[in-house]
């Protein structure tokens, strides 16, 4: 059976690429520290020596639209083109081409359906920065095949937070049962408190530092009980109007497992949002 060699949860900040490739006067003052933290985070994946990446993210109204909106969607394609015109325009993100791992996509779809998740699928999926940001930060060579999994954290009505956790638990179990010798890393990205297009956006910190502090503690300690007790679809409006992206962190807590302490925890307090990086090694830390 396949082995899960790393579980990784991260924010996906689209400004990282531009900030850390800028030089001279264009380079923002926080870029050096940000890059140092990312290089340390990247090393946690490199050390695990994965063959395949399962990538959990959320389409930001790029390919998925309100005339036909899936709640959870698995890509199954030999290749995925990546990044969109408006991401080039606003964030300076490069166009990318990633290889797919169709056997694992098929395995996740079949078993996910059989476990009670009516997963949508796509045979032609152009992915966006929720998946390419962690490729850029964690595996900039973009040389490993992926299985993209999209969640709807964006267009209400949304699934309940507990559903994200359960999907994460199922993904963990399903990947562990994949009849393959390959080493799989499961990587998912979301947000802590975040406001987009509302009065609290682009402040000196994230819109709710106290929520961020508690959220990092829940994730780092695998405290699903308290997280699920405090987080509801309604409560997530309070820390910031885009904070429902936190449910992708909850999905990754489901993958890591209740009570699982993260082996790597790091944060960076930036303007507009708090960055947060977590790695678990389910099979023990690599030598």
């Amino acid at each position: 059976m396949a082995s899960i060699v790393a579980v990784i949860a991260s924010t996906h900040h689209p400004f990282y690429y531009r900030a850390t490739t800028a030089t001279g006067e264009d380079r923002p003052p926080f870029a050096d520290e940000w890059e140092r933290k990312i290089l340390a985070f990247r090393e946690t994946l490199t050390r695990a020596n994965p063959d395949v990446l399962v990538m959990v993210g959320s389409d930001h109204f790029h390919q998925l639209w309100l005339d036909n909106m899936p709640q959870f969607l698995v890509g199954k394609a030999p290749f995925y083109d990546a990044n969109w015109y408006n991401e080039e325009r606003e964030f300076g993100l490069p166009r990318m081409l990633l290889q797919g791992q169709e056997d694992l996509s098929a395995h996740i779809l079949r078993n996910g359906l059989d476990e009670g998740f009516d997963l949508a699928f796509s045979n032609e999926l152009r992915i966006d920065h929720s998946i390419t940001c962690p490729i850029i930060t964690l595996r900039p060579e973009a040389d490993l095949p992926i299985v993209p999994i999209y969640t709807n954290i964006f267009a209400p009505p949304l699934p309940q937070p507990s559903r994200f956790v359960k999907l994460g638990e199922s993904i963990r179990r399903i990947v562990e049962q994949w009849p393959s010798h390959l080493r799989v890393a499961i990587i998912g990205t979301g947000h802590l408190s975040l406001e987009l297009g509302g009065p609290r956006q682009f402040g000196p910190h994230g819109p709710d530092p106290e929520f961020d502090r508690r959220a990092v503690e829940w994730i780092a300690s695998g405290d699903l009980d308290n997280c699920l007790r405090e987080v509801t679809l309604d409560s997530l409006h309070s820390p910031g109007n885009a904070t429902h992206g936190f449910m992708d962190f909850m999905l990754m807590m489901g993958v890591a497992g209740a009570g699982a302490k993260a082996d790597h925890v790091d944060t960076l307090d930036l303007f507009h949002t708090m960055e947060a990086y977590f790695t678990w090694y389910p099979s023990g830390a690599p030598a």
Partner: protein
Amino acid sequence: MSKYLIDKFLYTVDRDPDLVERYRSAPGELVAWWEAERANTVLNCMTGESSTWLRFTDDERQALIDHDHVRLFELGAHPFLTLTLFIAMFERDNKEPLEYQKAFGARLAHFDLPYPDIAT
């Protein structure tokens, strides 16, 4: 209410560089053209298989023509779509980094929780 149609306008204009420029420079003309020619296009269907019933209310149409992102927020337009398109149109006029983004937020300062419902 046609929140869905406002969102469809923001979404389809934002992803087309020519439409972004037309919306910035001639919003009245662009909104009238879009409502007549594009509002009823089902995005993954051929022409001839369009919808027949979508139109803006007068209030919604005027908010779009006026580039009135505060009114769009009040009407329940998806704030991510509004922000992305308005940054595309107006960030270029910044005299300092994030000037437009901060002013955009400041103009919404009178809104308290709960914000207008964005469910479509």
